[in-house]
């Protein structure tokens, strides 16, 4: 009888978070990278307040996407260093527990990055939300999960390819286009606050995207993990 899968997921997650907290090198470099992305974006786009509200949605999410990709590339770094993945693969622990733990770990990690980047964006672009601000929360959560769940899956997939770092964005970006479009459009609609349009459709689409791809990942991760 192996431990309950959720127990394993929790143990793996706490292990990852503890290691992340202990070494902190990855998180610091990532935070600095996120800051750089925001500043570079702010230099290249410096619109008047009204215009910035139109394009801020796109800027914010593209910046988050790039920061997330760099973080996702590190997902399996620790497992590869001493081939610890083999120890996990030999054990009776289910593959999906590992996947969920890694995805949630990434979700927290990217969430922290976003939490840092958002205030900077608000400051640099003098943003004020005109529409229903509370809707931004579901958009952020569903959107980040959409990037992270596929990112973790494709990071595991690109372990088996030659040029690993470039492979992940190549696989991730085309598949994430509908989610990215939904996030950007929802955020822009909320920022602009035009009463005639509502972000509800986009939030529903994001939710469907998350459900479809989370099930897809859980169904196929075992095959990809053991595809040596």
């Amino acid at each position, binding site marked *: 009888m192996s431990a309950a899968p959720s127990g394993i997921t929790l143990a793996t997650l706490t292990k990852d978070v503890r290691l992340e907290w202990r070494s902190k090198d990855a998180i610091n470099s990532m935070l600095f990278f996120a800051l750089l992305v925001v500043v570079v974006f702010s230099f290249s786009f410096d619109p008047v307040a009204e215009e910035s509200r139109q394009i801020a949605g796109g800027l914010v999410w593209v910046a988050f996407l790039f920061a997330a990709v760099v973080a996702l590339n590190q997902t399996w770094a620790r497992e590869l260093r001493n081939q610890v993945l083999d120890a996990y693969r030999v054990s009776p622990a289910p593959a999906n527990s590992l996947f969920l733990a890694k995805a949630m770990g990434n979700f927290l990690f990217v969430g922290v990055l976003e939490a840092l980047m958002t205030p900077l964006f608000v400051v640099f672009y003098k943003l004020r939300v005109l529409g229903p601000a509370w809707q931004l929360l579901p958009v952020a959560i569903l959107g980040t999960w959409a990037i992270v769940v*596929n990112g973790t899956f494709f990071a595991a*997939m690109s372990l*088996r*390819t*030659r*040029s690993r770092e470039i*492979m992940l964005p*190549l*696989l991730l*970006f*085309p*598949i994430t*286009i*509908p*989610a990215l*479009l*939904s996030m950007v*459009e929802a955020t822009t609609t909320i920022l602009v606050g035009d009463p005639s*349009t509502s972000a509800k*459709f*986009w939030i529903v*689409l994001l939710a*469907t*995207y998350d459900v*479809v*791809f989370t099930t*897809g990942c859980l169904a*196929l991760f075992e*095959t*990809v993990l053991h*595809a*040596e």
Partner: protein
Amino acid sequence: MKKAFPILGLLTAGLLSYALYEGLVVAPKEQTMGEVQRIFYYHVPSAWTAFLLFFINFLASVQYLVRRDPKTDKIANWVVITIGVLTCVAPYAIPSLVPAGARASSIATTGVALVGLYFLIKKFFSEQETDMLALTTAEVGVVFCTVVLVTGPLWARPVWGIWWTWDVRLTSTLVLWLIYVSYLVLRRFSSSGQTPVLAAALAVFGALDVPLVYFSIWFFRTQHPQPVIGGGGSIDPRMLHVLLINWLAFLCFAFLVCWSRYRLERMKREVEETQALEALLEPRSALR
């Protein structure tokens, strides 16, 4: 069997030239757009052929993943049958489900086509061959998709003065093209022996993504209306007739290209197989 290929080749060439003649001369001139509207007879058939090829790729990839284990294979059979039955029954039982343009019968036929195609592939292709079929249809599909993405702007430019419009169909084709190019890139870069499994998983993901791409861009368009390629609504029956001829011609052409690419792939794998066997037999003196 060997001589069937050149005969089919000639037939297809004849059909293609006939279709070209129909498209350029016989078909009536469109009032508003004039001659340039004839690009329609290459643009739309290429798109339909590309979607069909990607659909076959999806079915072949699902089969490759499913047939590895007899249990999941049986489950998949039943799932496909239920989907087929549903698409036949649902539009008649719940008329509201049928979207505006489509008729209930067309949904039913696609349902039957899905089930038929799935079991056709299952019968004719062994497990390893489905992987080859998936690669072939993906590659030829990308070629047809490139054609669509080239003829699209060439059509939009004279009619609306812009090279690219974020039209629902054109943009979906672009995203589809990106997904399947990343599929081909994964196949080339993957160094592990399990490349087919990874590629099949990505193909399934890509196919799951298609409806989401379509709906997201469709809603995006309703908020920012833009000119629509090929115009919606009904078209002149004579034009439809020419369109179908062209599509038939392109289907035959696609079939031939797929067939030759498939033979190339099979030959490549046979060569690799024999080289592997040779490596198996002669002792490895190199390492002494």
